[in-house]
């Protein structure tokens, strides 16, 4: 309990910890929202791919001194389009196309980053360092959250119908491809933002784990998004506490906390929990 008091005391004293906490909360909300759509559309692997594929964009942005979001977005979208292109123009299945494209992008990014080593820290990009977030980063994060919320609110019914019944959406003339790439764009923005808190490697966990936890707990898409965002925020805050107290990397601390929530839901969810199901069966 003493460590919790220390954490709260730290929050009142240190500006960097306040910034970290707010960033973690904002990133938690946006990854819960976007993650819900990622798992409902069966795109978990795609989420993983885009998050890795932004690495060369990050490197190029560092080298040229341009905005990180811009560089990363270009490479994230490029990867999404390449994956679509390879899937469409060959007999290969989508997961194979994803595997080829994202590993190549990641490898390229790795080499570029090591060339730009002086300006950046590879370890922090890969695993996150939320305690080093600047006020400028915080503002960018807040802007991205606003964009994500606006996107989901404005296109809620289009996102629902394309996730649930894409053929129906196409049959009434909805431009499902435009929406898909729009969502990929949003996913890229979230990825670059979440890079600060959990790092590139573990972003997919923030997208999938809280959303999967929520999926086990509700039967309504809007509730699922709310619950996912809530779990994601709790995981971020609790993870940050562990990171601060035990000097763990923030990414793994946050992701493990989210995994514990998932485990609890997996075992005890009234809807799908394996213990509850067993009891009902007996």
């Amino acid at each position, binding site marked *: 309990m003493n460590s919790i008091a220390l954490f709260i005391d730290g929050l009142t004293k240190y500006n960097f910890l306040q910034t970290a906490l707010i960033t973690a909360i904002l990133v938690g909300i946006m990854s819960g929202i976007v993650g819900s759509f990622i798992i409902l559309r*069966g795109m978990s692997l795609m989420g993983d791919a885009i998050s890795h594929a932004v690495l060369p964009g990050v490197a190029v942005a560092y080298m040229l001194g341009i905005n990180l979001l811009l560089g990363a977005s270009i490479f994230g979208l490029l990867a999404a389009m390449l994956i679509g292109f390879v899937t469409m123009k060959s007999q290969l299945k989508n997961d194979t196309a994803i595997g080829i494209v994202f590993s190549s992008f990641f490898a390229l990014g790795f080499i570029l980053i090591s060339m730009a080593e002086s300006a950046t820290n590879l370890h922090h990009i890969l695993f996150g360092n939320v305690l080093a977030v600047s006020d400028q980063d915080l503002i960018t994060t807040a802007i991205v959250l606003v964009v994500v919320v606006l996107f989901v609110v404005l296109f809620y*019914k289009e996102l629902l119908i394309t996730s649930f019944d894409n053929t129906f959406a196409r*049959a*009434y003339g909805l431009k499902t491809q435009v929406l898909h790439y729009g969502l990929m764009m949003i996913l890229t923005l979230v990825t670059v933002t979440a890079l600060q808190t959990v790092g590139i490697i573990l972003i997919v966990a923030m997208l999938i784990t809280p959303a999967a936890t929520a999926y086990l707990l509700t039967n309504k898409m809007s509730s699922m998004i709310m619950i996912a965002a809530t779990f994601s925020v709790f995981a971020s805050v609790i993870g940050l506490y562990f990171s601060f107290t035990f000097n763990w990397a923030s990414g793994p601390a946050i992701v493990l906390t989210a995994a514990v929530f998932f485990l609890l839901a997996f075992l005890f969810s009234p809807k799908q929990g394996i213990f509850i199901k067993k009891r009902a069966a007996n």
Partner: protein
Amino acid sequence: MIKVRDMTVAYDSAPVFTNLSIQFEPGKITGIIGPNGAGKSTMIKGLLGLTSKQSGTATLADQPIAKQLKLIAYVEQRAALDLTFPINVLDTVLTGTYPNLGLFKVPGKKEEEAALAALTDVKLAEFNHRQISELSGGQLQRVFVARAIVQDADVIILDEPFVGIDMKSEADIMAILKKWRAAGKTIIVVNHDLNKVTTYFDDLVIINHGVVAQGQTQDVFTKKNITTAFSGDLSNILFDEGEATHE
């Protein structure tokens, strides 16, 4: 009237059919029959632009269908959907209002009332809060028919609506199709069960990698056409038994 002219669809360079021409008239229930893999669903998808076609045109009231997709309700084969999606019956039916809601608009009270009325029409009113995964095959098919009701389209296309459903659901759906017919809508049903062809369909199209025959059911559903599209054995069973019961 829907007119399909000279449509060719090929997958991986092997044509499913070439230069296929069909028309569908309003105020009628038109059945499409043909053996497995004959191109029935592909024809529908080509007509709707869901599959790219190598050539041909599809028009509704002499205007390209691609520009009037909102006037067509398409009830896909059931198997294609993820039934674990977190959505209940009422919200599923409400998606039928999406085509006619503008961008940024979400269903309101009026849309909800329409959805509840449609669920009453298909006798599922008390199921509106059920998850779709908790329904039987027949109930689920009726949910999608309810969605088509809410869509209030001029043309309704159903792909294998009677596969794997109970007799009562089939009768309920058939009653809705007849209501649509009375309202002057164009109804197109892809079907593979030949037994009810003469009782269900006003017009009939027989397909086997192209049109074998089309026209009024009594003119088209003949031993000769069924032999051409399916097999001699099948037509012997269908028509000889039919004659036997006459005697």
